[in-house]
């Protein structure tokens, strides 16, 4: 193993690690605000990537139908528990009018000729709204349930989404065009343009999230909910609002990660889960509470993965997922005292 291979593996590891870091941040965020362990994060990644692939090949993305279906379901749930005419109006707008308008728009456009930026926006516009809809339908009715129940629901939603993914995308995988084909030479090392895009996008996104949480009222409201749910309620920050906003952000991160990862590896309908789980290992390193630790853990996971794929490629997933055991052991050594589970 020479320096060149090490540099190459390191580059791979950091690139993947940056994507895991994004996923880990989303997982920590969702858990802190809603106590949901967001297993379906990976499905947003896969749906984003495969929607992009469909757009690139000029096909009408079938995820639009999922959006319409999701919207109708959300509208129905809203209808059953309506509190006022105004809220029903808003629900109609977002859950029925918006998906149908989007479907109509895409029907009219000639998808094959769109510029990349437009495709990115469309992929986001289709998949991201399903985040808050999912919260409304699956989690909001049981927002006060124990973490364990929320986790099982989360797994159930993941399973249903994988099945739906198979139904609309089929078993074939897709790879999308890289955002940049350029190659840069740095000494003896070749750096791919897409690698730089991934790193830059991750950094921009992380900084944007930081600014959102540090500077904006809504970002602060989410933090407040995570710190003290009762206190936040007394300020009129409803858990439902916080939940929908959080799931929106998680969906944005999921879809963007999908767009970034799809040019690197072939994405199948069920690829999201494994990628998401690696984000999880990182999030667990951060104890589902610390953002910087989780991001650091993600880079570690990325590097571990790329180096173990060189040494023992058949066992790379085994190695990454077994990492969780020493991490948990370390965490369990630092916690004691019997406490009640909520």
């Amino acid at each position, binding site marked *: 193993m020479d320096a060149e291979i090490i540099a190459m593996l390191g580059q791979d590891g950091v690139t993947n690690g940056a994507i895991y870091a994004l996923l880990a941040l989303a997982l920590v965020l969702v858990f802190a605000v809603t106590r949901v362990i967001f297993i379906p994060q990976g499905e947003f990644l896969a749906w984003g990537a495969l929607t992009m692939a469909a757009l690139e090949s000029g096909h009408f993305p079938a995820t639009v139908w999922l959006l319409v279906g999701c919207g109708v379901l959300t509208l129905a749930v809203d209808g059953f528990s309506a509190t006022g005419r105004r809220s029903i109006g808003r629900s109609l707008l977002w859950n029925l009018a918006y998906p149908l308008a989007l479907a109509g728009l895409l029907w009219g456009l000639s998808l094959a000729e769109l510029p990349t930026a437009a495709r990115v926006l469309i992929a986001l516009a289709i998949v991201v709204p399903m985040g808050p809809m999912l919260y409304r339908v699956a989690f909001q009715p049981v927002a006060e349930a124990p973490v364990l129940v929320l986790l099982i629901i989360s797994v159930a939603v993941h399973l249903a989404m994988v099945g739906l993914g198979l139904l609309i995308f089929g078993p074939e995988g897709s790879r999308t065009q890289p955002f940049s084909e350029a190659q840069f030479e740095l000494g003896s090392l070749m750096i791919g343009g897409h690698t730089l895009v991934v790193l830059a996008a991750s950094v921009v996104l992380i900084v944007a999230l930081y600014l959102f949480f540090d500077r904006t009222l809504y970002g*602060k409201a989410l*933090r*407040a909910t995570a710190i*003290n749910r009762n206190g*936040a309620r007394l*300020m*009129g920050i409803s858990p439902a609002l916080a939940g929908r906003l959080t799931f929106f952000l998680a969906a944005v991160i999921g879809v963007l990660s999908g767009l970034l990862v799809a040019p690197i590896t072939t994405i199948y309908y069920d690829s999201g889960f494994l990628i998401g789980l690696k984000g999880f290992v990182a999030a667990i390193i951060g104890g589902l509470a610390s953002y910087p630790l989780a991001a650091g853990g993600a880079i570690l996971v990325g590097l571990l993965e790329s180096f173990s794929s060189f040494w023992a490629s058949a066992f790379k997933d085994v190695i990454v997922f077994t990492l969780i055991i020493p991490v948990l052991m370390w965490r369990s050594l630092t916690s004691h005292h019997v406490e009640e589970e909520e």
Partner: protein
Amino acid sequence: MSNNNVLEVKNLSVAYGKVEAVSGVSLAVGEGKIVTVIGPNGAGKTTTLSAIMGLLPSRGEVAFDGSIEQVPEVERMVVRGMNLVPEKRELFGSMSIEDNLLLGAFQRHRSGKRDHLETMEEVYTLFPRLKERRLQQAGTMSGGERQMLAVGRALMARPKLLMLDEPSLGLAPLIVREIFRIIAELRRRGVSILLVEQNARAALQVADYAYVLENGGIKMHGEASTLRDDPRVIESYLGLGSKHQELLST
């Protein structure tokens, strides 16, 4: 419902499982008045406030600012101008004092009223200490400062009715005096206040009207100045019987 009442509660009952903690409580808060609910521990004071605010499911009628809430819901009550400073304060410990205050104006800001900077200045004039420490984390403050921040945070919403749950709880006498001075000051500024207190003397001193809650029901009510001298109030607190009333009334 008479026009000069901000809050009118009729026949409010709350049950935890099969146990009724509050039954058939009726009370009213007049516009610009301080009304206090006093009573021994476990009488149902906090439960009553929580139910009015919509934190707990209840039966009965809550009329606020002229319209009846069938099912009070916290977020809606906040939008309509009711704010509760809970017994536990419920601050955002790892956020700065300023952010805590800012979040107090969340609903107001959301409904398009962007006057939080002015309000914050007003809060700071009321609590200069908070201004001195505005970048400090809320969790690092002393008990008295926490209470001030909790009140200040609630004021950021410019409430029509401020409900205070045991604001003197666990505070040293000097700070208790300060808190009650501020409560009196707030009334001068036109805020109606529903005050729940164990510190009966201080509460009766500052209030216009008072209710005595015991075992989940209103046992007495009347002008605060009248109740202040009622021996039964003292009895229900200490259970001492008549022999100590003399001593207490001095």
